[in-house]
């Protein structure tokens, strides 16, 4: 109590010799200033706490569709695995929805309601989650074909090896997404529809252009094979 009283009142007896009224005013001013600073600090701390609550609530909102461990979910539409995903990739995609670079009605609504700091915090959360893949990709033959395309590409069709950019373990890097454990139907639907969904804002060209030619040069059955292969990778 003593310290709090001293802090608020700023009482310092040495200064109270004469002109007590004037001194009281100054002391009052000091005290008001200190109170204001204290209040500002208090509310800053409070709003920090609210932000933590907000973050947890928003995280549960993401996980309602993308799975409690970020493992993805087969709804009417396949909802991609976010677990282990590169933060820069997630961040870039959320911004792409906002900036109309990537077309998706549901995610456009979702992303528009995110503040920049929330967006960044969410993007970093999923990196450390590591649930087993949902799998269900395809037959052994498909998986073997997919692996060959992933590791060696298709020189005759001008398809580079996926591993060159997405890494030999398919974990991606920076803006290049992790593919390991991705839902095969999500993977397939993105690649067969690449040019209609990505790079949609001509005034803001982005890194999605890199995948354009490759997505066209792959046949649907080749895409399905690569989807089958990567969906089983951990």
């Amino acid at each position, binding site marked *: 109590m003593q310290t709090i009283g001293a802090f608020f009142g700023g009482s310092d007896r040495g200064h109270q010799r004469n002109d007590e009224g004037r001194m009281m005013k100054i002391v009052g001013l000091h005290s008001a200033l200190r109170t204001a600073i204290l209040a500002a600090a208090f509310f800053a701390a409070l709003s920090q706490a609210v932000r933590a609550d907000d973050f947890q*609530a928003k995280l549960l909102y993401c996980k309602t*569709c993308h799975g409690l461990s970020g493992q993805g979910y087969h709804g*009417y539409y396949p909802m991609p695995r976010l677990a282990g995903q590169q933060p820069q990739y997630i961040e870039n995609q959320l911004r792409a929805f906002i900036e109309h670079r990537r077309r998706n009605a*549901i995610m456009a609504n979702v992303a528009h*309601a995110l503040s920049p700091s929330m967006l960044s915090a969410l993007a970093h959360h999923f990196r450390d989650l590591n649930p087993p893949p949902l799998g269900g990709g395809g037959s052994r033959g498909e998986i073997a074909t997919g692996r060959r395309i992933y590791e060696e590409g298709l020189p005759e069709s001008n398809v580079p090896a996926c591993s060159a950019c997405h890494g030999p373990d398919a974990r991606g890097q920076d803006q290049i997404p992790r593919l390991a454990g991705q839902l095969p139907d999500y993977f397939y639907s993105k690649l067969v529809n690449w040019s209609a969904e990505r790079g949609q804002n001509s005034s803001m060209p982005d890194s999605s252009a890199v995948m354009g030619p490759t997505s066209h040069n792959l046949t649907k059955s080749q895409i399905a094979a690569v989807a089958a292969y990567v969906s089983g990778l951990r």
Partner: protein
Amino acid sequence: MKRIWPKLVILAILCSPVPSWAGSSIAASVRNCTWCHGTGAQGYTVAPRLAGQRALYIEAQLRGYAARIRDNPLSKQYMWGAAANLRPDAVQELADYFASLPPKSAHDGRRALVETGQAIYLQGIPEANIVACLACHGPAGQGVREIPRLGGMSYFYLKRRLEEWGQGYHSAPASPMPLAASTLGPDEIEALASYLSFVR
């Protein structure tokens, strides 16, 4: 011309489309369902419509009753017993049968709430962390695989189920519905149930 009529009538009776399940053991099971769910399986009072429901959903729910996973009061009261002794092949036959019937929309919600309900269904309310229902249940509430068709189900059934999710009852293991419904308030539930009851 006159003498041909009796023959035609007899022919018509002989060739009338007899449901393929008639006379088999499934006929009795179907009757047991339709006592409560309505003769056309369009739902009746608290029993939901089964006509046009996703076969895999019906199967999963019947297994859920038998395993006592789906534990809301009416399920306990009526369906635990009803599903307890169904053989696996009967479960599948019943599910396929009801899924094949054409569903009718209930139209029993509040019309004034249709627009609000539709907006929540299609877009969610991102600011309130309410997810868009269509991501799982489809743009017309048609459902897919084990995810139920919601379009045209009765307002009272939908409202009660949405409330029950928030009250901590279970259905399928790992269902996202407890989480999805936890952010819905009474107004949102009212609007969603109203909208869906009018969907074809």
